[in-house]
């Protein structure tokens, strides 16, 4: 599903060049749930952005669902995303001037789906917000907004779901509900999940955990469900890769 080969990312900022990713090779199979943990600045977000086609690596190859993202233009990447990739943000990022229904329908409309609003309605029902389709984000709680974002991400039946700290702006209880929903929908759709989180408990719900440090994968461990992993840092490019 996800195949990253020798990925490097260097960004040039006001203070000079910064090495964000330093040679990452990784393969994630279809339907896998993978958590990405690590301290701030370790490169987790950059790795997720590269997988989503939102950032081009300085070096290396990215293949998602069998498609090499390298040769794709900006617009082709956008088209690829709306067909294959769902994204859930920490800050929800719903469009404030659109209703819940319209927000969910957005990627479907971009894809030219005639049943965009029908499908959006179904997804909102699935997350328990069928009765709020006409409401705007400003009229919803944080949890409700994140559920709308989940519905939006799953509306396209994504091959790959990327979630960046999906409970970061939610209280514990609400966050738990959202996470339960996320994993439930992931299982129903069979999507591959790549999840960034600081929470160990959340990370442990995934079948695999990648720990990052200084732009490298420090450890890559299969997690037996129900077991809390311990961190292991290898600091080398040849991190264990599992399929």
């Amino acid at each position, binding site marked *: 599903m996800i195949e990253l080969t020798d990925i490097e990312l260097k960004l040039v900022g006001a203070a000079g060049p910064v090495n964000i990713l330093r040679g990452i090779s990784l393969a994630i199979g279809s339907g896998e749930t993978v958590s990405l943990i690590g301290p701030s600045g370790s490169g987790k977000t*950059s790795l997720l952005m590269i997988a989503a086609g939102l950032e081009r690596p300085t070096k290396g190859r990215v*293949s998602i669902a069998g498609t090499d993202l390298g040769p794709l233009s900006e617009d082709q990447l*956008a088209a690829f995303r709306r067909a294959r990739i769902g994204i859930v943000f920490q800050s929800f990022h719903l469009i*404030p001037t659109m209703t819940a229904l*319209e927000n969910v329908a957005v990627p479907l409309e*971009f894809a030219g789906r005639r049943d965009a609003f029908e499908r959006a309605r179904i997804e909102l029902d699935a997350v328990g917000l069928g009765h709020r389709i006409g409401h705007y984000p400003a009229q919803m709680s944080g949890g409700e907004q994140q559920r709308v974002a989940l519905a939006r991400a799953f509306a396209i039946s994504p091959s790959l779901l990327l979630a960046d700290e999906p409970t970061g702006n939610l209280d514990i209880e609400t966050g738990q509900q959202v996470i339960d929903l996320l994993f439930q929908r992931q299982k129903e759709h069979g999507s591959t999940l790549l999840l960034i989180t600081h929470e160990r408990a959340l990370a442990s719900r995934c079948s695999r955990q990648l720990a990052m440090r200084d732009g490298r994968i420090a450890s890559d461990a299969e997690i037996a469900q129900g077991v809390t992993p311990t961190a292991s840092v290898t600091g080398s490019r040849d991190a264990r890769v599992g399929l």
Partner: protein
Amino acid sequence: MSVSEGTIVATPSQGAAPDPGGWPLALKFARRELRGGIKGFRLFLLCLALGVAIIAAVGSVTASALGGLERDAKALLGGDLEFRLLYRPIDPAQQDFLDAAGTVSEVRDMRAMARASDGNRTLVELKSVDTNYPLYGEARLDPPTDLRGALAQQNGRWGAVAERALVDRLGLAIGDPVTIGTLEYELRGVIEREPDRGASVFILGPRLMVADASLEETGLVQEGSLIEYHYRLALPPDVDPIGIVEAAKAEFSDALWRVRGLDEAAPSIRRFIDRTATYLTLVGLSTLLVGGVGVGNAVRAWLDGKIATVATLKCLGASQTLIYRIYLLLVAIMALVGIAIGIAIGAVVPFAIAAPLGERYALTLEPAIYAGPLLLASGCGFLVAIAFSLWPLIRARAVPPGTLFRDLVQRMEVKPTAFDMLLLGAIVAALVLLAAITAGDRMLTLWFAGGTIVAFYLFHLAARGLKHLTRRMNESSGQRGGESRRGPIMRLALANIGRPGAPTTSALLSLGLGLTVLVMVTLVQANLERELVRSIPAEAPAFYFIDIQGTQIDEFQTLVSEFPGVKAIEQEPMLRGRITVVDGVPADQIEPGEGAAWALRGDRGVTWTATPPADGELLSGEWWPEDYAGPNLVSIESGVGEGLGLEPGDTITVNVLGRPIEATIANLRIVDWTRLDINFVFVFSPGALAGAPSMHIATAQMESTQGGADGGVDGGVDGGDALSAQEIETREIALQRAVTDAFPNVSAIRVKDAIAAVASIIEGLGSAISLAAMVTLASSLLVLAAAIAAQTHRRRYDAVVLKVLGATRRDIAKSFTIEYGLLGIAAAILALILGHAAAWGLVTYLLETPWGFDPAIALAIVVGGTLAAMVLGFLGTWRVLGTKAAPYLRNE
């Protein structure tokens, strides 16, 4: 396809179209974005509406004025056709022709002196009308009465009606006597409306109207008197005027009358309206362009607030093209709203100013909704809105979707595509084309467009330069380490100018453009006014006396030359003649060069002499000897001669009093018309006009210093005390009285009055254009104020941090004021340079007037511009000075 380690790598997807929804989808999303309200578009709407309103107003008022001329064409012309002759009436055959064609009204026009019973007198435009007048339209009098009755002979006295200006000037009341020539009239009414007044731009004297049958009794109708005879013809409805004109040409091929149709009613006011509209439209376009800066700022600010939305849409699969289309449509929708407001305002302006404008220029405006000017204004507004929004749209298109995940570490690379540049080029070209159509003068519009592009470029360059300079100044100050010569307040001011994202460019552009227009307009006005004053030579005559008969000239010369205070007199015989053949080619087949077209349009001054003028400088050829008695020779003014392609040796035929006078050109003579001496286009050799009944024209120069006891021509003591204005006025009036008492048929034109009339026109025109320029400046200040307001959030933050570090409110206010003061100075200096360059070009090449630098204006603009920026900067930051630190620090 390639295979690596068992993974299939597909070629880039080929099936999915980037934007299956196209423009309809983009419109759907644009409408959803509008649900957020238009709060962020207030400046956008205001700037656009103001510029569009001015262009729409100018166009609508022009159309109203021209519409009024069209509607009143028959009344203005006085008929369906007008036949016009100078010096003498039509002959009986011509009279019979006109009588057979329709109803005829005869009107005579001349200048004369009107005298009140107390001896006060003034020059008037005397008009005698027959009982058929007016054929069209209605004359209105106060008190309301029938014109024919008011002018008819009652109890042995003829009646007269006069314009209010004459009544006021001579202190008349209804029933008072008014003397013209040797006839005393009774004033019976004030003219409130004269249907064929013609709305003349230039009027020497107020109107006095009398019955045609009374004119001979005034003694003013002499052979050679400068009288215009007008024969207006009202045709039956089914008669084509063109047919009558053709028949007249065929039957009277040698007739000297000039024929005018409805399309030539009031040509001078038509030209005046068109020219004024051109200038006002260009100033309106300047306002729109300055507003465009505000539009661009507003769109940019609004889109900056939409970065998260744009990035989200891109994450969800929106292509760059779709993003571009969504926000382009949104800008287009808002542009239509702003345009609608603008044209609504512009469309009602004719209704609001019809009365005062009509009174000022004796015009009848036809206020209505004129689609043409409104459409043109809308087109200009739309193109400006899109042009200035393009760059912010390109930036929005380039927003990386990854923005949502991290603050931008690296600078966003925004590169317009070839299509973007092509689109911008097409918009600019379309705008120039529309401007040329709207303004009406293609060459002037092209110059305006070129100048505007140069101005924009220079202001951008200046902004970059200023930012670079301020950064360098601060860097070099920092590099010295230790103490800096500049305190923190100045360094902060400089840093605020040079920092990335500073509104330096839009501040310079908006204020600078507005000041440039104001400088240009003010300098052109000042130069025109100066030229008017300068063109009056020190030795200008005080009076022109016209219609002096040949039998009166000796006595006239004696009277005037011996009059106290008269320094010099000059007199020449004068007739008027029309060019009929130019070197063998009929005049109506000639295509005159620039500077000579006017000579073919009507009758020109003609004189004859044995001795050449004292200051006659020749361009080519020679004068005839004093005792010359050979075939007719003529000296032609060089501008006319060259414009007609004539050289010494060529021939020209001038018809004078019905007699064609053919003469060989002896020389082309250079004439300085600004000297106000008596001068003529044609000076014939003696004998050419022998026996022609002529009038004389004379000038009188008066002393401006107190003379000796003997006064007179040779009087005046060099180095004497200067006379006061009152004393000069008294002497001039005394001379005027003496001459017109002795010779009632002579009219005295005071040069001062003529110049005052011209000055009034220049002032009136200048005021209108200056007013429009002030609106442009107001627009630029509005844009500047908005740019300052947009910085409020950041200023608050700066103010909080500075206060925490120990700065007083005074320190902060000083820093912001210095910042905007520097911007103001920079804008003013560049505006001075550009405004001067533009004014110089206009004055030198379009108005063909000598250029003069006016340091007072320069200083006023620099000081005013700087102050305006400083005041705005100070006001804008006043609000932030009271910001409490705690809420900001707590959020941190």
